């Protein structure tokens, strides 16, 4: 146990990078869900492809915004 605590003390480096790594988990899952369900919907109803694709990109932009915010914040608050 003490070896684990001693090892945890020795972690140095950029906390911003760790923060971005944690912040990328949620949007990664979210973008996968969006495009997965979008592709499934396009397979079920191919005549609605354009409508589905439009909404897919709006959803992707909103979700990706959070990931990019996680990328920019370590530069804003170092």
């Amino acid at each position: 146990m003490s070896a684990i605590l001693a090892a945890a003390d020795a972690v140095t480096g950029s906390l911003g990078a760790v923060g971005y790594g944690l912040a990328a988990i949620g949007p990664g899952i979210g973008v996968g869900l969006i495009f997965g369900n979008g592709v499934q919907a396009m397979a079920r109803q191919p005549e609605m492809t354009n409508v589905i694709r439009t909404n897919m990109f709006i959803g992707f932009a909103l979700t990706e915004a959070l990931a990019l915010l996680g990328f920019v914040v370590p530069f804003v608050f170092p």
Partner: protein
Amino acid sequence: MDKDTRPGAGSGGSNPGVTITSLILSGMIFYGGVGWLVDRWVGTERVFLPIGVVLGLVAALYLVYVRFGRDQ
């Protein structure tokens, strides 16, 4: 073959994924830069920079809606 018959191409510029990401990033960078300059002009320390970043994010999301989100 026609242009943009690839399944990944949407309306308004091919390869929408890269375009959307770069629009959001450049919106945040540009208006974050404007906020940083306002910070230097007013003399405060890191007050307008996050405001600029968030406003740039909103502006970029609106631009994405205009280019990709309308039924064209």
